[in-house]
């Protein structure tokens, strides 16, 4: 019973956070995209439950919200890791061998094209189309930090640095 209560309490708290976002946006269906963005900022992804909850609170069909969430590459319906590696694969970065970096990260983190998040939910690796920094190609963005003229070795080192910092914290 204790466990159940904790689970449901946690959910109520999650939804309370969503409620606050909805209130901030005046429950305005026209603000669906900013609402989804803000929700994703909190949870890193959009869960099925949260999408349903937002849809019903705004009186918008769930299928419509699902449509919006699947239309924009920015929204993710899958849980993401704590740290997100966005690897540019635009023309310039592709020519500058972005795939070498990708494979180095895949190998380091035991990921592949279908599995993009590590089991411990620490890292997610994504390919993006163009980050608009072609002069710096190839580009890797880790969370908010941009790394230009990146190399496979540098990308692996970035992972190691994050892991080391996490160990220190513990």
């Amino acid at each position, binding site marked *: 019973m204790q466990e159940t209560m904790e689970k449901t*309490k946690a959910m109520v708290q999650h939804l309370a956070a969503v409620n606050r976002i909805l209130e901030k946006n005046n429950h305005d269906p026209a603000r669906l995209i900013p609402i989804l963005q803000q929700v994703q900022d909190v949870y890193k992804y959009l869960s099925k439950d949260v999408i349903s909850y937002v849809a019903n609170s705004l009186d918008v069909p769930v299928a419509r919200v699902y449509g919006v969430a699947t239309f924009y590459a920015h929204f993710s319906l899958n849980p993401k890791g704590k740290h997100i590696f966005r690897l540019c694969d635009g023309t310039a970065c592709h020519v500058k061998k972005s795939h070498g970096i990708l494979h180095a990260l895949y190998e380091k983190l035991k990921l592949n094209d279908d599995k993009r998040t590590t089991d411990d939910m620490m890292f997610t690796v994504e390919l993006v189309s163009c980050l608009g920094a072609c002069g710096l190609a190839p580009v890797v963005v880790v969370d908010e930090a941009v790394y230009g003229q990146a190399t496979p070795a540098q990308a692996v080192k970035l992972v190691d640095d994050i892991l080391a910092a996490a160990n220190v914290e513990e």
Partner: protein
Amino acid sequence: MSEVKKITVNGREVSFTDERNLLEVIRKGGIEIPTFCYHSELSIYGACRLCLVQVEGKGIMATCSTRPESGMVIQTDTREIREMRKISVELLLANHNRECPTCVRSSNCALQDIARRLGVETIRFKQMEKMVDIDHSSPSLDRDPNKCVLCGDCVRVCSEIQGIGAIDFAGRGANAKVAPAFDQNLADVECVNCGQCAAVCPTGAITPRQDRARAWEALYDPRKTVVVQVAPAVRVALGEYFGYDPGVNVAGKLVTALKTMGFKYVYDTSFAADMTIFEEATEFIDRFSNGGVLPMFTSCCPAWIKYAEIYYPEMIPNLSSCRSPQAMFGSVAKKILPEALGCKREDLVVVSIMPCTAKKYEAQLSKFSTNGQPDVDIVLTTVEVGRMINSLGIHLSELEPEAFDMPMGFATGAGVIFGASGGVMEAALRYAVEKIENKELENVDFKAVRGMDCLKEAVLNVAGQEVRIAVVHGLANAKKLIQDIRDGKSNYHFVEVMACPGGCISGAGQPIPVEKDVRKLRAQGLYNSDKGQQLQKSQDNHLVTKCYEQHLGGTPGSHEAHHRLHTAYQNRSQLFDAKIPVMRGTAAKRLPITVTICANQENCPGQLLLGMISKYVKDKNYTDLIDLDAAFSSRSEMDGTVCVSIGDRIVERADFTNAVNTEEQLRNQKSFESVKGSIDKGIQSLK
């Protein structure tokens, strides 16, 4: 009158007034411009790019999204346009499942039609998309994404006409598709089975479920006695399948055809419609005179009922408890026919022919079955029956008409007009006004409720009292009406709701296409039949009266009549709630329990209740047999919210008294006892 303006189309002048786009003007001029995504009653989407024309001085434009301007000079067919259209169709066909001969829509498919018209003879592109599974989950509709051309007609009809939005576009670019939320099955979402999506689909991507094979099986089985009921709207539309004009009543020929097919007896659902009026008008008079819950809503349309159960559970007490005519027929037929026809109940097969896909859903609801045997075994649509007749090789036009079989083939005009929007209301008024005023009703026509207006209202003076009525069709219109009632802007005593525009005559089981004028003609066909009928008022149907005397407790509203002809509704408000699993059993058959917790309330007693239920389940060693979920409701009003659902059983939040904050208080509630009782019963029924 607006000013008359002119454009030139292919060198000929065409006048126009207030047409909403160039397409309508050109079509008025007699040129059928090809389209996929354009539908005169839906918003303009402009996606298919087939309606292109050359406008002098402006270039090539899509006519659906261009306003007509006086003096425009237009060519509808140039080499360039022809090539563009052809390539568009070729590209659509490249990714289309082209197994046309086995498609339900073969020979009635816009894609096939346009490809033929444009002379698309080869397809140069390779099929790139992988075939995906067909969604057969719904009892009413099949969804085959491999045939979808992304025109969005279904998406728009669902959200604009029905106010639901059960399907929408998902994904993007080459991955774009039309799907229910989270790619769920249609049966698991808010779809109310009206099938209007299938009625507007230009291809075979959404089609009515086909139950013809089951019907043939029953007909070929010598042990079975197969009887059939025919809904009112079917008779004025089936002819279209065989080249008749819309609205021509082919009931007599249909009876002959069904007899040829092997149906032992052919009855008329209008008989059950008359019976529905006995019950429903009696219920209304009772509510009206004795301070019952008003407004009362009609309950003949299963799509409307499911809609109300999902979106307005707090209005469930407002729904008439009467079963629909189809369900009443089934219930009565399974009760009286085995004896009358000398067969066993389990060997009697009741088939119904309906204009509707939602009736397929209604017939399979467990509440309309006895000992696991459904009251109505098989539901066929008008088109399915057309195909069955076709497959016999008989020509409908050459058949001699026959009459329906008695007693359940006898109907008054009131029972026949059920098929048009306003018909149920008019039939009920013919009964109720006469009963309340206690003198013979001379003028049986209530014309205010007829026609295709989206809201029809009237105030009647009945025995010195005002009776305010309203009729709506299209669930988006119903939604607006309910909102107005809630906001206090409208105030009615009696409301008829039909999900399909124009009522059952444009149900999704009817021949396609259904445009505005087709609807009018079909409705007119029903009103003509009403006029041609000997009797116009349900209460004059002596065979219904006799049925009451012999089998249904004597009078409408009797205990037996309630048992056979009424029903209860299911609160489906948990459908949209965010849910988390709390317990998962391992047995093959498990009892689902869902407890609603209000997400807007910090210390919702639902949490406490959930804990107590999980404790009860553990104490009783039910853990393996149960799936327990917590549902988090976003509904702002508590009204109508389910508190706990246990299998089919529901305890509403309103059943618990307010201010229950401690375990002790909850435990002493009567409703908690009923929760425990329901769990015990549910577990027993698993075994």
